[in-house]
């Protein structure tokens, strides 16, 4: 019998009875062929690979991360709770040391879901990685976490949730936002004032191939991770950089994904997008599982794999080198930028329009963060949508100082309901969540 060199866990939850709609990319069929391939390869019989049943995430788990409007159950389905619960299960097993790494092969995905949730964006309702991470922080006292998002689309939801958190390093590698949804993820987005430099974006030109991805990994991601020294590395393992993906324009391959996984060595991989359900996903998922397990993946390839045809041009390589250079320079400037910004009582504001493509909602947000030398700083979000309705959300960060926390409660208590339909406070210091209307 085959055995793996590392004990790893899998949650496989293809949700064969759930779809956004019958012909949507996020439909029942999505992981069907992946299941066939994983089963046929006999992966679940490998000694050292354990399959777990997903947990079901709770409302409480969501309230550590999101402000759901009007409430959690209105913007999620059971499927979202299972998907997040699958990630949570893998995370718990890793922290219980029952496995050294794990992969939550679940759907629907979550990395486009931001802190405030009015509906679905980019097929995502709740951010399954963030729900998992905040649960693990609460249950196991994990502090420093790095998320490496290798989905082809910018992980704008995860970026938003951790924008102000200097203890969470968010690195996203994706197809350049000028050529793909959601249109963000430029190097100039490097985190909020108290957390400048702990968001790193690596937008890659269309047609980037294995060579380019591994270059970015070796020259930017791994060195930055080395310096950040996270306790936990999470990989948002979207699989839509594949050359056969129908909704993106990259040239990555199954073996490359396996190679990336094997070098990145994430503790937890969570499936995100990836819609080449027949030609790519079956092979990539098998490759990722074998790589996580420390097993030989050199014979994994797509039936039509032809590395010559996929090779990237020299001008693409040059562009990638430039992106890496910029990102490294921002990363180096991070500590200095944070020092400069973290002045007591200084308020930083940004106003944004957020489009929920899946549910066709336009949200306007005004976000305020308190500059703080002691903690990540109090965050408040004034949000309204084109459907009418306006809310105020107050986020007291996990390690908030007394002043920020007090300021948070004062804002929550003193704001009148004349202007807002609901007011929320998420107090991560006590793991509490309140709202009034």
């Amino acid at each position, binding site marked *: 019998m085959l055995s793996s060199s590392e004990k790893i866990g899998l949650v496989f939850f293809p949700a064969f009875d759930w779809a956004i709609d019958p012909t949507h990319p996020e439909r029942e069929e999505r992981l069907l062929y992946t299941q066939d391939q994983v089963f046929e390869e*006999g992966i679940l019989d490998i000694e050292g690979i354990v399959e777990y*049943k997903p947990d079901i995430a709770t409302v409480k788990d969501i309230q550590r991360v999101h402000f759901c409007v009007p409430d959690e159950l209105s913007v999620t389905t059971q499927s979202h709770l299972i998907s997040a619960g699958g990630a949570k299960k893998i995370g718990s097993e890793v922290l219980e040391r029952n496995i050294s790494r794990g992969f939550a092969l679940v759907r629907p995905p979550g990395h486009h879901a931001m802190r405030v949730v009015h509906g679905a964006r980019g097929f995502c309702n709740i951010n399954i990685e963030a729900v998992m991470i905040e649960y693990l922080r609460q249950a196991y006292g994990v502090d420093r976490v790095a998320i490496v998002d290798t989905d082809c689309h910018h992980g704008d939801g995860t970026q938003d949730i951790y924008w102000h958190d200097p203890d969470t390093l968010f690195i996203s590698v994706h197809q350049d936002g000028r050529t793909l949804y959601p249109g963000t993820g430029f190097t100039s987005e490097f985190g909020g004032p108290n957390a400048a430099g702990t968001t790193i974006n690596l937008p890659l030109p269309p047609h980037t191939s294995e060579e380019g991805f591994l270059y970015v990994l070796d020259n930017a991601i791994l060195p930055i991770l080395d310096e950040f020294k996270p306790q936990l590395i999470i990989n948002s393992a979207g699989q839509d950089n594949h050359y056969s993906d129908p909704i993106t324009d990259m040239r990555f391959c199954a073996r490359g994904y396996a190679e990336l996984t094997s070098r990145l060595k994430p503790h937890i991989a969570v499936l995100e997008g990836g819609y080449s359900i027949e030609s790519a996903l079956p092979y990539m998922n098998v490759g990722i599982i074998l790589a996580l397990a420390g097993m030989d993946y050199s014979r994994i390839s797509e039936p039509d794999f032809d590395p010559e045809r996929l090779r990237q041009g020299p001008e693409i390589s040059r562009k990638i080198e430039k992106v890496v250079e910029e990102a490294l320079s921002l990363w180096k400037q991070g500590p200095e930028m944070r020092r400069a910004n973290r002045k007591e009582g200084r308020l930083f504001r940004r106003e944004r329009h957020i489009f929920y493509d899946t549910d066709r909602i336009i949200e306007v947000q005004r976000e305020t963060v308190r500059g703080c030398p002691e903690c990540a700083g109090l965050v408040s979000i004034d949000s309204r949508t084109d459907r009418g309705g306006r809310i105020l959300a107050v986020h007291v960060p996990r390690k908030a100082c007394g002043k920020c926390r007090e300021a948070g409660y004062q804002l929550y208590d003193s704001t009148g309901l004349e202007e807002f339909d609901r007011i929320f406070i998420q107090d991560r210091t006590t793991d509490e969540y309140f709202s009034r209307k």
Partner: protein
Amino acid sequence: MIIGLDVGGTHTDGVLIGNGAILRQVKVATDTGNLFDCVCACLEKLTVDLPPKAIRRAVLSTTLTTNAIAEGNLEKIGVVVSAGPGIDPANFKIGSHYFCVSGSIDHRGREVQPLREREIEEIADIFIADNIRRAAVISKFSVRNPKHELEMARILARSCEVVIPGHSLSATLNFPRRINTAWLSAAVHPLHKEFFEAVRQSLKSKGVEIPIYVLKADGGTMSFEASLMAPEQTIFSGPAASVLGALPFASPDVDTLVLDIGGTTTDIAVFARRAPLLEPLGGEVAGSRTLVRALKTRSIALGGDSCVDVIDAELRVGPRRLGPAMAYGGGHPTPTDALFVLGKGGKGDLEAARRGLRPIARNLGVSIEDTALLILDLACAKIVGAAREMVEEINLRPVYTVKELLSGYRVQPAEIVVLGGPAPHFAPRIEELTGIQTCAVPLWHVANAIGAALARNTSEVTLFADTERGLALAPGEEFSRAVGKDFDLEKALCLASELLRAKCIKAGASECEIDLEVVESNQFNMVRDYYTVGRNIRVQVQTRPGLISECRDLAGSIFNCCILPDAV
């Protein structure tokens, strides 16, 4: 009248059942060196002086193939696999003549790379040179498209008598298990065939011609003729006979835990509302995982003859067995000796049993009677612990739909049925430990043979259809048919049921035995570029293990009610 015969590791048990009663029963020590004589002698004893026509059937369960596998006493088998991209098939090497060849088929059954006939021809030459007479051929995804396996089989037919193609054994997706299963099937084939033909000949020479059925690992029966096509199904049928013997005592509306407490081991099985639970993929034999449908059983090294010890002031029972109980002339104290001390022994040497427990009692600083109680307690607690783990494991089994995850069936045993020698004495303590109503099977000494006698046929059919490719395929049945765009789940279920019915009849089932059950019925719309191009349909239907219908009431009358002995 029907006959049930169960050849176990230690004993061979046989019963003759008719008119709602056990008419004859035999129990002889199994001669592992000569199973044939052992079986024939039993059959003769059961049938002596009966008119040949009076016997409707005989069901046999033997350890023949299981023993041969355990002893590595099998013929050399040639194995040829074609894998394509994926895990290196060299990892699944089995036997001395294992060859990996080109060719690949993808998950939808499309040919990616053709076979190279030349490679197979060369292997055929090697087989001839090395006198390899039987072979197994396996290709990845052959259950989606058996083309490569059939081609390999065709080429190898010139050098081999028997070539087993993997897809014919099971429609389950699992390439490494398919390799093991096909190898097993080819390896046990001659032994199985020779043995049962000899039994039939021997009976025939004595003027007895009975239809012979063979018990399978999943607790179902198949006719001897059908078993020649799938001899691997009869491997590890050992626990199946006993588990079926417990079936008449299980209630139809609750979940039941079955404990078969033997001398060396205890086998644990579970019924969900009287349906014996099966292994999700297949059984495991001598460390090799297969696709052979098998009852889900868990075996622990603890039984009536397990060795009792005190190590570091702690009482231990098992896992070793060092011969029979001292009451029966053994040299080491056992739980059976404890039963003797408690006055629950049979015909044996009570003094020897007391002598065995005495040093243990001294070591623990308690009386001999208390020691006996402690031993019994510990043995029961271990069995209950293992049973709980097994139920937990069943309930943790992953499911793949939202509906199943939210409302999935959870096994919660509400009754326990105990078989085996010490059963009546262990049952009350197990009931106390679990708080679950526990009963010992009466006639436990032949319950296994009764189980075999009353077992009905089981069969399964898996149908896979891909309307974009215009194909419906039941690989185990060598069935494939072109289908149109209108082929849907309902039609697939109809077709699969038809195939199953035919298969059951072919395997010797009578019409009234056939009780179809849908295990899987899934239909996926295949969407490409936002248009639905076809349906991907997966259907599995089966008949579950159970008792033949004409004997369902009979079971009650045979056993009458079950009376528990006084609580220990």
